[in-house]
């Protein structure tokens, strides 16, 4: 029973919302435009740094958010400028290495005074502006079966804000995907030369999609940081691949796919971890081994999903028939 409640708790946890938001950003890249961004964690990390560093230097919350957005947008422009004129694979190579570059720069000793090196930035240094805005009382609050603090860290306040943000950006995706703007992006996903031949400036549209998705990823990073701290190593390649996984799991190019994908991904992680520690005796698997073991199980489950339902949970099977 506890396990069930824990899993449900994970469904609406701020971390789930943060990943859902990041996946919505990636959905603009991949689902709508077909851009292979393999460095989404880099956008997230830049958003985290932009927000945390500016707050710890005294910036008000709105300014910190603007800085996070601007930094991610500049990163997108910088990445897109040389690569978007080339074939898709080049963007993949450039993004994966640029994201690693951001992480290595962040954890380097040279920038220690700014980024805190490999230990990162403590939550207490940058979370206060957000926590001060909480309308909830400063204590643990139990709602139905779940207890969270009213304003600190992974609080009810963060849950509320994070899911409102996810809902707003899902709406934004829905609105843009059905607009003529989104139609051009879908055309680019299918065949950019055809869209060029119809008189659309493909480069500009790809750039708009890259920057927009990157900015949304950065905001996902800010949500993630508000639930904990800024840790450069938590935003490495695995994070990018997780976001890809949950996007494909939920269904790319759908409005709710990133959200459903994130929920199922995080819930199954907790569920499998819980079940494994409850039913597998410690003589077979020690508690330290449970964590990697559950990740393996999640991996296998996801592989099954991709094999038996390649369009994702919400995807349209009909579309897949024409994948060339």
């Amino acid at each position: 029973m506890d396990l069930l409640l824990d899993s449900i708790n994970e469904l609406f946890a701020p971390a789930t919302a943060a990943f859902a938001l990041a996946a919505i950003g990636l959905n603009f890249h991949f689902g709508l435009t077909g851009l292979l961004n393999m460095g989404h964690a880099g956008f997230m990390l830049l958003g985290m740094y932009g927000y945390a560093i500016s707050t710890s230097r005294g910036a008000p919350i709105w300014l910190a958010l603007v800085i996070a957005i601007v930094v991610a947008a500049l990163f997108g422009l910088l990445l897109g400028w040389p690569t978007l004129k080339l074939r898709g694979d080049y963007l993949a190579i450039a993004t994966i290495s640029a994201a690693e570059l951001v992480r290595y720069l962040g954890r380097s000793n040279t920038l220690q005074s700014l980024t805190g090196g490999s230990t990162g930035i403590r939550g207490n240094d940058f979370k206060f502006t957000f926590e001060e805005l909480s309308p909830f009382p400063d204590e643990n609050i139990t709602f139905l079966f779940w207890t969270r603090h009213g304003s600190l860290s992974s609080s009810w306040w963060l849950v509320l804000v994070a899911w409102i943000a996810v809902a707003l950006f899902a709406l934004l995706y829905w609105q843009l995907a059905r607009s003529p703007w989104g139609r051009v992006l879908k055309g680019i996903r299918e065949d950019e030369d055809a869209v060029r031949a119809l008189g659309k400036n493909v480069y500009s549209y790809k750039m708009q999609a890259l920057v927009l998705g990157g900015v949304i990823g950065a905001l996902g990073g800010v949500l993630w940081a508000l639930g904990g701290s800024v840790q450069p190593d938590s935003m490495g390649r695995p994070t990018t691949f997780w976001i890809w996984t949950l996007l494909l799991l939920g269904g790319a190019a759908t409005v709710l796919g990133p959200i459903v994908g994130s929920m199922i991904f995080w819930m199954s992680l907790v569920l499998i971890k819980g079940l494994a520690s409850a039913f597998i005796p410690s003589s077979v698997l020690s508690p330290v081994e449970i964590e990697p073991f559950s990740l393996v199980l999640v991996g296998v489950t996801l592989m099954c999903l991709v094999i038996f339902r390649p369009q994702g949970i919400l995807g349209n099977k009909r579309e897949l028939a024409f994948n060339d």
Partner: protein
Amino acid sequence: MTDAFASVPHEPGAPKPDPIVTAHGVHRHFGGLTAVDVEHFEVQRHAITALIGPNGAGKSTFFNLLTGFDKPQHGEWMFNGHSLVGTSPAKIARAGKVRTFQLTKALNRMTVVENMRLGAAQQSGENFFRALVPGIWSAQEKEITAKAEVLLKRFKLWEKRDDYAGSLSGGQRKLLEMARALMSDPEMIMLDEPMAGVNPALTESLLDHIVELKDEGKTILFVEHDMHMVRRISDWVVVMAEGKIIAEGPPQTVMSNPAVQDAYLGAHHDTDLSEDAS
């Protein structure tokens, strides 16, 4: 055959009375291989011009150069009196010269009607910020859809409007690509092998569509291998071989030009190569 060509000499690079496209000294080579080396080329307005030639003659490369999809080492070319040197394919399309592709580019995971809507030019909802407010573009969207409906009916694709373009047959995709190109009301339409891979039953209606376009006042330039089609619908034929224009003339007579026969069959096709002759 239209009278416009009455005074045009039957020679390569012949000037036309009312050219919509003029190219001069266009040269494109890939490493040591010269793909296109055209001294002078004009396309008559409101006419159907065919560009033919044996495989590897440089037709498709020349086509790509004229539409901005490839850049020549040097040369200049004009559309409606405006130079197109260094102009992007998108700008050339917006100027009123659209093209289709030899390998059809239907946008597979979009419906037929969405393919059509994408073809329309100057959509205000294609701007990111205006896209956020449906009120700004919904009226235009209705106009575009109405226009798409007319074209889809004309091209016999109306029943397929909500199907994914990927589910269409090869011939239907050719039709869709042509119809989509027409959504922007181009002045000139350039078709790269419109008959390649089309089922013979559809060929006739495709030909009729092309002739109809001319009757509407559009200019058509097409690359084709099918000589039957070239003879049936074109007003003027331009023959390319080894990157150069080697002959021009009306379809009835151009194939009897010795230079053309040499290009297609080899310069010594009449020579007896048997030992007795030597």
